[in-house]
């Protein structure tokens, strides 16, 4: 039986055969972020894949990864597409460079993990929090629990971290 969840008006579905995503979201549901680590070259990868993008090896081990990093880029959505998101505008989509494996295997590479800016409880962030975040903001991972075996990793401001004095934000504000 596929795992199903209704989230912000969307019907989410995790298929039985989608073993990579089943494992990924199962760990998220346990609030234990893990990525596949290649058993040959030992590199971590995101999002889930069926082989290693660097050495083609098939075998990988789900390895705990610290959910901390800095915003690499973002968009702030004011005109939502999905109807249920309209109540939450403006919302942010963040692309976050994990601290883990940043700059490897080449200087331009990083584990860049997508998520919304969220409150610590995993719900979409309120407007006053959106205004504080830009490129360079330090964030930590939280989870939106949707169903047994399915939680979405999200990002919230890492209040314990040293933040850049002024994160880069879109200039026309």
């Amino acid at each position, binding site marked *: 039986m596929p795992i199903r969840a209704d989230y*912000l008006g969307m019907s*989410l579905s995790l298929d039985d055969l989608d073993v990579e995503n089943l494992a990924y979201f199962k760990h998220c549901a346990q609030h234990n972020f893990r990525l596949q680590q290649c058993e040959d070259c030992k590199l971590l990868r995101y999002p889930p894949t069926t082989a290693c993008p660097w050495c083609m090896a098939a075998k990988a081990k789900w390895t705990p990864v610290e959910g901390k990093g800095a915003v690499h*880029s973002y*968009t702030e959505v*004011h005109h939502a*597409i999905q*109807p249920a998101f309209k109540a939450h505008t403006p919302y942010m989509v963040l692309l976050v460079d994990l601290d883990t494996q940043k700059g490897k295997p080449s200087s331009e590479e990083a584990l860049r993990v997508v998520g919304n800016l969220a409150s610590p409880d995993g719900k979409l962030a309120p407007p006053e929090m959106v205004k504080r975040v830009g490129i360079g903001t330090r964030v930590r991972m939280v989870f939106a629990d949707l169903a047994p075996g399915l939680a979405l990793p999200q990002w919230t401001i890492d209040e314990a971290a040293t933040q850049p004095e002024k994160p880069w934000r879109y200039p026309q504000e």
Partner: protein
Amino acid sequence: MPLPADTDTSSPRYLRDKYAIVGVGETTYTRGSGMTTRGLGTWALRNAIADAGLEASDIDGMLSYQSGDSTFSPFIAGDLGIRLNFYMDVFGGGSSTEALVGMAMGVIEAGMCKTVVIFRAMNGFSQVRIGGTGARSAVPVAGEMLHNRAYGWQSAGQLFSLTFMRHMHDYGTTPAQVAGVRSAHSMHASNNPKAYYKQRVTVEDVLASRVICKPLHLLDCCVETDNATAIIITSADRAKDGRHPRVLIRAVAGRVCKPRIDMHYQHGPISTVAGKYAREILWPNAGVGPEDVDATGSYDAFTFTTMLQLEDYGFCKKGEGGQYVSDGTIRLGGRRPNNTSGGHLCEGYTHGMNMVIENVRQLRHDVDDSCPAGPDGKRKHTYDYKEGGCRQVKRCEVTANLGWAMPGTGSAMVMRRD
């Protein structure tokens, strides 16, 4: 600009100049076509076949592209009485046109058929909205979509904006610079009787329009329309019998990708797009460079996509795209006008093909503006680019089309006048 003197135009290398586009056609660009994509497709094909001076029996190959939103070649061929020796309907949107031109050349070269028509038919406003609303929004979110749609990260604008924002961060590109693209394309569209949006707009108009998703304002985004487009490819030899001056294909690059194309943001710099890789195929194969190009046709799904492509194909230095698109270069009358039809931002949206059609007409020196016809029945272009006037580029000899699927995938084509 004429080709460099040391260009060997007889070179068989890469099929350079061995194939030609001999016919182009389209429907009106509209919202509310009142017909099926099958009806739109046959309409565009009939126009392209008539433009080429051919008959249905001259066409024996067909290619189309779509994303689950259109009819298929067998229906179009059947409706028009075309017996096919080859056809294929592929999945894809932007970046398909140039890639399929390359495929058409390949199948003709292989002796599989002689003349190929490529079409794109879509009710992009009335039926399946590219922006992701309506039918597209109702699809269950599963598999790879769990890593994007589930985050409200779904439409092209939402998906690409991470690249756009990072470019502004990395290079100081400003919203006003990029808005220059809309201003230029609207100027061109005002001289295109076919264009859906003919009104000229200013940089200030763009910046004053509402924000869709940062950094995109409403007027940074293209229009969604109902329409079909078609182009006909055959050998340069066969093209000698055509009705128009020959438009020869110098080189194509098709769906060239950045690394990790499953999720290209893993590999930076994310402010660089696939043109960086495609140009390594395009320019050597074409035997010309950006400096030899008289007019460009960029995939302007957004103002930013034009800026990024022109930059990464080498029309300006990396990071100077904002300056390039705002200093007059890309406007009619400038050194290298871009999207002289108004493009996707203003003319209409058919996933890249209308910009190829426009450049074919530019190279024929016969764009369909409002210039009066002379005694020989051909338009006498005034080169006066005032509103409602001419949009023919003077001495247009070489053009480049830059196709785009997303920041990580691009296609391109160089054409020249015989």
